[in-house]
């Protein structure tokens, strides 16, 4: 009795192998498609910005005259914004992570906070903008100033920092903690002197990635009502401000009226992408250089 019909198998073999080969090519092409878009996007942006990025562009204030317009205000605004976002997310994010990993007992409250954080991460950024508009801009009557924008952004990127810090703290091996307890240290002393220093590279990587997300976000700041045209530079936490993504947004939608605005938008994009690239490189560097494996 014959279990396998060899002829049948042979007949099917050609088409099976062909399908296999076609599928492999198709999968490769799909992968390359993403990269192709990346290359085209960067090429387009750089080509459009050529001749527009120079020292004057970085150092001039906003102007309706495309030739004289610069992004100094947007750069300063981004710096001021980070001055709020960085400490707030660091304290809130790392604090939450320490609580969840070191203090919280496995139970309802811990599970609830954890679920809450992962759901917050999925809330669209524009909804955070509405929260900021309602509570910080109108509720506390701050207006669309650095502090209000910074708080809004800090809440938006908080889940990123919490999750990264949790992973970093979890990766600190138990025997380090036990050694510290054995020396007579208390729980808080152990966290402060042993756990946090060991987890620091992971935490910093998370914070930098969170900041780079905040630098690139546009929607929440549009919603809290940052106007299209601000000439004075921000000089404090209660000053009105603008940031690079917003400048890109307004220049892009106005490029229908003035062609050169598209070039200005492209030039700002190049600066923004450079900043993000540098920040991400630093994050990768920290991760590779200082992350100890125990």
């Amino acid at each position, binding site marked *: 009795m014959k279990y396998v019909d060899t002829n049948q198998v042979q007949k099917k073999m050609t088409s099976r192998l062909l399908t296999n080969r076609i599928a492999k090519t198709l999968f490769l092409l799909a992968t390359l498609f993403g990269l192709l*878009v990346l290359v085209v996007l960067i090429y387009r942006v750089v080509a459009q910005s050529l001749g527009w990025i120079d020292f004057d562009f970085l150092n001039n204030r906003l102007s309706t005259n495309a030739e004289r317009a610069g992004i100094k205000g947007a750069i300063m605004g981004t710096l001021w914004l980070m001055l709020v976002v960085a400490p707030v997310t660091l304290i809130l994010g790392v604090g939450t992570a320490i609580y969840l990993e070191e203090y919280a007992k496995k139970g309802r409250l811990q599970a609830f906070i954890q679920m809450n954080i992962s759901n917050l991460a*999925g809330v669209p950024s524009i909804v955070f903008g*509405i929260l900021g508009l309602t509570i910080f801009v109108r509720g506390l009557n701050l207006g669309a100033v650095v502090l209000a924008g910074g708080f809004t952004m800090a809440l938006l990127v908080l889940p990123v920092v919490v999750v990264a810090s949790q992973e970093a703290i979890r990766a600190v091996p138990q025997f380090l903690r036990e050694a510290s307890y054995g020396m007579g240290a208390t729980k808080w002393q152990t966290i402060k002197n042993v756990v946090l220093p060991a987890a620091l590279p992971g935490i910093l990587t998370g914070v930098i990635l969170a900041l780079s997300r905040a630098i690139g976000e546009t929607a929440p700041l549009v919603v809290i009502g940052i106007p299209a045209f601000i000439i004075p530079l921000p000089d404090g936490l209660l000053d009105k401000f603008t940031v690079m993504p917003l400048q890109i947004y307004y220049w892009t939608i106005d490029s229908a009226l003035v062609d050169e605005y598209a070039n200005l938008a492209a030039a700002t994009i190049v600066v923004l992408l450079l900043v993000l690239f540098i920040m*991400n490189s630093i994050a990768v560097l920290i991760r590779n250089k200082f992350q100890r494996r125990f």
Partner: protein
Amino acid sequence: MKGVLSLEKDVTRESNTLSVREMIAKNKRSVSTASVLEGLMPKILLTIAIISILTTIGIVLTLLTETIAFFREVSFVEFFTGTVLKPLGESAQFGVLPLLTATIISSAIAMFVAIPIGLMTAVYLSEYASDRVRKLLKPMLEILAGIPTIVYGFFAFTFVTPLLTKLIPTLEPTNILSPGIVMGIMIIPMVASLSEDAMSSVPNAMREGALGLGSTKFEVTWKVVVPAAISGIVASFVLGISRAIGETMIVTIASGSNKVFTFDITQSMQTMTAYIVEVTGGDAPAGSTLYYSLYAVAMTLFVFTLVMNLIAQYISRKFREEY
């Protein structure tokens, strides 16, 4: 550690001059400050942790109160079945359907791009690529994922739309097709990396079993790996949809603000997110129906994405195959 060390130093230096009783008293004092801190820190940290819950409560409360105020002026039925959105003027009408269809259409176009390409990318990276190729390609995809959405918006408006106009001459300068496609490209890395994670966790023994029975690589992938990783793959699709629904800047820039109830993808349409941007940018006076409509739309958006995220969590928990 520092505190303990310096204490020891003090003890050795001052042990000649201090009596034992004073030493104990001193120790007790420093212990008591430490124990105060010890008791305080968990409470401080708990307070900080609760801020994340307060954020959620804040979002829900602000959206809810203003949405309720909105539904006092506009009926629930009118909002969800009305096909006319005319927020300004004498006879203002607030039907959310134009926004809802625009959101669904743009997300559908996005997923039409992101699902096949993202899944094929994941298959290639997880099943076909050598380690070296994977190490080269993955960071590139991460760069694609890290590009701010505003840059994609610029790309859609100044490059993709003109390109598409050459193929479809009737395309409007702002339309839903171009941002839909670009949104799909933006979501590819997310679908690819989540699906790849799911496929990589399928144990090799299963692949080897299928290969041993004479399957081709494609058959192994399609009939063994993908079915085994299906919960993670579907969860990545659902998260992608949620991302597309909440995406703001690409559609705001490239799809314009035409509030029509239509299914014609060459036309300008306004999504829920773009409506929020337009209304807040226009300084709606607090207390007006227009102002409240902002919250009603945001609430709809919030509920949509929340449900999607919960579905994704449920799928990946419930249907996960454990090996």
